[in-house]
């Protein structure tokens, strides 16, 4: 019995770490799901836009002295605006042709954004110190210590995921979005400006990625590659949850973070692979994903 208790204590940090990673998976896959549902574009630039969010927060702090809290609002707005410009000037031209072109274009954009950041800031990574007030949230349970900032990340990510879900499922604007995901032409024939909705949806999805980037800045070093590390796993999350499913992407994000954390305890070598094994199994048994409509 004592052995088990000891094991659980040992496992706790990894499991919590896993759930925190899961929070980032959820935020990122949520944005991807919203964008895919509405625009039918697989946004490969999502990781780079996450990175851009972290860098904008860093630039606001080190160049303009703008602190964490304003950055948490400003960086998503700035990166979201960049997203709007990308959609208007480039992505909007691809809606009538094959998915593959959207994927190629956004992948190219990701390379350009990462390249520009690497050129300007190098690849070693910048430090972004979390604001001191988070010490008040520090959690200590026996030997287990959880820094207050990570508690905040969990709260903020869950709140934003829940709010996004509520907006999509329970509001008038959300009903436009759901309807336009099913039949964009008919929704436009009802008098709704669907092209504008698509632009704003892309901007909002990108802003979600940037928000995750700002949240991540104090935890991970702010480097051009930080998004690329996440995004591969996030695509696996999206496939497992079901392309375009909102609730599915949130639940799957947290769940896979947790599974990764647990795997880290019992079989550390497999922790990076386990997500892809699950993806393969899901693809073989439920090709539309756990929450997807076939």
């Amino acid at each position: 019995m004592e052995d088990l208790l000891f094991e659980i204590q040992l496992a706790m940090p990894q499991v919590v770490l896993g759930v925190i990673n899961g929070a980032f998976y959820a935020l990122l896959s949520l944005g991807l799901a919203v964008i895919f549902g509405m625009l039918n574009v697989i946004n490969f630039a999502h990781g780079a836009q996450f990175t851009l969010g972290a860098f904008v927060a860093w630039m606001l702090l080190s160049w303009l002295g703008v602190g964490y809290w304003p950055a948490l609002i400003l960086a998503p707005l700035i990166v979201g605006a960049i997203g709007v410009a990308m959609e208007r000037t480039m992505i909007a031209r691809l809606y009538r042709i094959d998915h593959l072109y959207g994927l190629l274009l956004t992948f190219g954009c990701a390379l350009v954004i990462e390249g520009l950041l690497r050129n300007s800031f190098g690849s070693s990574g910048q430090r972004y110190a979390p604001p001191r007030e988070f010490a008040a949230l520090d959690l200590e349970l026996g030997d287990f210590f959880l820094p207050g900032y990570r508690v905040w990340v969990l709260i903020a990510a869950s709140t934003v995921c829940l709010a996004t879900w509520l907006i999509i499922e329970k509001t008038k604007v959300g009903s436009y979005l759901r309807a336009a995901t099913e039949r964009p032409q008919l929704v436009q024939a009802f008098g709704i400006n669907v092209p504008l909705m698509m632009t704003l949806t892309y901007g909002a999805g990108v802003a979600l990625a940037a928000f995750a980037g700002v949240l991540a800045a104090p935890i991970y070093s702010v480097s051009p590659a930080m998004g690329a590390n996440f995004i591969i796993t996030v695509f696996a999350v999206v496939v497992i949850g079901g392309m375009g499913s909102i609730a599915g992407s949130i639940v799957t994000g947290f769940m896979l973070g947790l599974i990764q954390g647990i795997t880290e305890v019992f079989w550390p070598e497999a922790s990076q692979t386990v997500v892809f094994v699950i993806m393969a199994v899901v693809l073989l048994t439920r090709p539309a994903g756990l929450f997807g409509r076939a």
Partner: protein
Amino acid sequence: MADATAMLQVRDLEAWYGESHVLHGMNIDIRQGEVVTLLGRNGAGKTSTLRAIMGLTGRRTGSIKFEGREMLTLRPDLIARAGIAYCPEERGIFASLDVTENLMLPPVIAPGGLSLEEIYTLFPNLKERARSQGTKLSGGEQQMLAIARILRTGARLLLLDEPSEGLAPVIVQQIGAMIRNIKQRGFTVLLVEQNFRFAQTVADRHYVVEHGRVVDEVANHELTASLDRLHEYLGV
């Protein structure tokens, strides 16, 4: 019949889906308050005519004047806001929306539409099943919902694509009663039909469509006398 006072005036309308040329010079006039049908076989271009008026086909040429304004160059959402509402053949009920959300989806574009209360009086089922998923309704209820939601918006011209299709005779009668009801309320209707016996019970005039153009026009009171002609056109 050329008519300068027509509410909707379609002249030499041609339309394409990609490479495929679907309308070859449609000419239609509809006056305020009329119910007019497009009769014709499958593939004659009836649905394409409605879609072209709504701006939902590919390239279009010719002219579509609604209350004197040219619609040909407008985006579909602006055509809708000018006062034309469209109810598609497959009804277009959204699976991810409940009945109320489906009903409230089209924005109100002008005063003069039916209030929610009036709609529930006309279609009591929609109130009873307000929280059901839209596509869980029966075919008849879905058709009622599809029409009800465009009566709310204040649009003055309704384009209805085969509202009787695939429905039981008793439901078709209800739909007919409803179209007569909305005509009395001053709505103007362009109706696509294959079933001319149904069309006869609701319409003022009929256009016969073949190969993407109007080939004949029959007033409703002449319809019975013109049955042979119609049988030939429609192949029934």
